[in-house]
């Protein structure tokens, strides 16, 4: 898979509903400067800039790399803009890794963001298209039927989704960057929150956030010189398939199965449950956690909800999921995938602070987009491959 590459710098903004203190350029620069500081380098050390974000309609800026180049030190450099639906933060990090793996670049900066307060995501996600019935359901309305199907197929009790919501919000209390901070979060509070799209309650849903994430990736030589421990990238992968086709399994999507298989094989992961110390999974609605546990091979089919129920995925469980609080606690859409990738790297660098998983050596980051049709993953390790 080409030259070795490591994450040597991670930066993110505080995620919140409305970042009125900064422009879009100010938001991305904040994250980028923090990543550079972590990496111990300056703008001139960066060979290329790779920008990712979800639809331009979320801010109303077309191809924003053209405007943001000044804020991100892109002038005079190669700049690329990736857009792969909700998985974009992850797939942008994958492209950035390819820059260094290719041998043509030594250190690259990759940045992703969303400033959702500039627009209305549910509006932008529900366009009126010619010849297509207008649904106007937003993402939750689109995904809810598959969660009902999951519950029905495996006889899953309704409190499982609520448990995921509580667990992620408890984790968020340990992450100063997390958007939602609900100190008195409890199962009762989630269960009493309004039903939005059966079975998804208000507190089982992700927020709309303004936020950005940035990573500095470096080759072996520069990783050795970086001031903080590197997170070595063992393998990356992306997969896509059609939004809708006969026989598509929306509970265990073929595209995610293929993506996980690819990244596991590159990373030498043969027993995911035993080998993976911590995972950051893109869970925008609580029910995705048990479904992903199954699809990612952390347990058998129909068993994911039992792991949730028994506390295996809690911060002190044997496979902590979303120690950062996850997408359920912060959702700057375009950056949400990169945050998963970055948080996985933070864990194996031992730099996650209060939400650090003790002794984490191997972690996976995962991102999801489209109608269960776009996936990106990477595996990172404290140990050089």
């Amino acid at each position, binding site marked *: 898979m080409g030259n070795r590459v490591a994450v040597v710098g991670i930066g993110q903004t505080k995620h919140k509903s409305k970042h009125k203190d900064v422009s879009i350029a100010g938001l991305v620069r904040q994250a980028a400067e923090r990543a550079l500081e972590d990496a111990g380098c300056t703008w001139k050390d960066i060979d290329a800039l790779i920008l990712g974000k979800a639809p331009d309609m979320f801010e109303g800026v077309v191809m924003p790399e053209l405007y943001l180049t000044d804020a991100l030190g892109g002038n005079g450099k190669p700049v690329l803009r990736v857009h792969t639906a909700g998985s974009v933060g992850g797939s942008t990090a994958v492209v950035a890794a390819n820059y260094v793996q*290719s041998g043509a670049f030594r250190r690259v900066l990759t940045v992703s963001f969303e400033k959702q307060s500039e627009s209305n995501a549910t509006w932008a996600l529900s366009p009126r298209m010619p*010849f297509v019935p207008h649904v106007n359901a937003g993402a939750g309305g689109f995904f809810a039927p598959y969660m009902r199907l999951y519950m029905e197929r495996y006889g899953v009790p309704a409190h499982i989704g609520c448990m995921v919501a509580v667990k992620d919000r408890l984790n968020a209390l340990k992450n100063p960057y997390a958007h939602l901070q609900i100190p008195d979060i409890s199962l009762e509070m989630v269960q009493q929150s309004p039903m939005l799209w059966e079975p998804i309650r208000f507190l089982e849903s992700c927020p709309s956030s303004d936020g950005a994430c940035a990573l500095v990736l470096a080759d072996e030589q520069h990783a050795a010189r970086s001031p903080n421990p590197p997170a070595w990238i063992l393998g990356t992968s992306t997969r896509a398939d059609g939004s809708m086709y006969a026989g598509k399994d929306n509970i265990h999507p073929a595209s995610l199965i293929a993506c996980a298989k690819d990244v596991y094989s590159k990373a030498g992961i043969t027993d995911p449950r035993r080998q993976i110390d911590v995972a950051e999974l893109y869970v925008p609605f609580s029910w995705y956690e048990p479904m992903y546990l199954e699809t990612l091979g952390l347990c058998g089919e129909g068993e994911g909800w039992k792991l949730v129920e028994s506390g295996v995925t809690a911060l002190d469980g044997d496979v902590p999921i979303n120690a950062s609080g996850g997408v359920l606690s912060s959702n700057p859409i375009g950056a949400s995938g990169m945050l998963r990738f970055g948080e996985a790297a933070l864990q194996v660098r031992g730099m996650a602070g209060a939400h650090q998983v003790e002794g984490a050596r191997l972690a996976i980051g995962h991102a999801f987009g489209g109608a269960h049709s776009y996936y990106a993953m990477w595996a990172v390790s404290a140990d050089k491959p």
Partner: protein
Amino acid sequence: MREAAIIGYTQSAQRRYAGAANESELIMPVVREVMQSVGVSQKDIDFTCSGSCDYFQGAAFAFVEGLNAVATAPPIRESHVEMDAAWALYECLLKIWSGEADLCLVYGFSKSSPGELRSVLTLQLDPYYQVPLWPDAISLAALQARAMLDAGIISERDMAEVVARSRRAALANPKAQLSGESSVEELLAQPGFVSPLRRHDCAPITDGASALLVASAETARRLCARPAWIRGIDHRMETGMLGARDLTRSPSARYAGARAGVSAGAVDVAELHAPFSHQEIILRRELGLADGVSINPSGGALAGNVMMAAGLDRFGHVATRIMQGEAGRGVAHATSGACLQQNLVAVLEA
């Protein structure tokens, strides 16, 4: 770094209005044709990457619909750039260089006809300081042309000569939207549009799609008798603040051209992505192309300009000439943003 070559290219007919055909319908035929041209199918493709822009379709995640044109069951390795597909080609090269892929499919597409393109492109500017003034894309290009005229770098006759040559060359390109024989005098007699630009100085609005195959060395030699080898490629960005740039120059094109190695040998053919006539002159100067170089024998963007594919088309046309034995060494160029803000340059060789 591993070697890579272009081994196939197909472009749809360049049309002002594709009617009810949606983007998938535009993409599907070119993808099928380019795969047939080298005898492969989607299962042989290691990586697929597309270039498109949501705003032209007026829908978020428009490329997700575009993907319906490709066989995706079983799932494929895929990515997308919200840029001209020439940068999708670049992403494919990263995959080939890092050993992650041997055969890649690139496609670019758009339907610019339903919207008001020149105003949509205004939204590429700084949203706080520039967009509220609504400078449209043609007016910005006109400012650039005016700066060149005022500096005495070009004359309106030079611009008309670019147009006359492009339209004449396009007579030999059956896919071209605009072609014909016009004298410089006839063109100069046309009325002004956005001064100093006349309508013919501006690329037309075009619907369409293009597809291209790029492969690592061994795969390229296996599938293609005469691959178009990518010997050098580089792309560079400039500031988005137009007032901070000398619009008569393109340092990013010059630097990318130098890094790609344009001057390392004689150039037979160059396809330059210049949506406005005066921009071709800037690019020719910055890339140091000699007078004898055949520029835009396809007719260039002035003869047909599918947004998000027109840059890839420049690669496709140069590669096609090399694959067909009509050229030995060529330069392909793509641009993005207002007034040539971002430029990608490559050298292709037989």
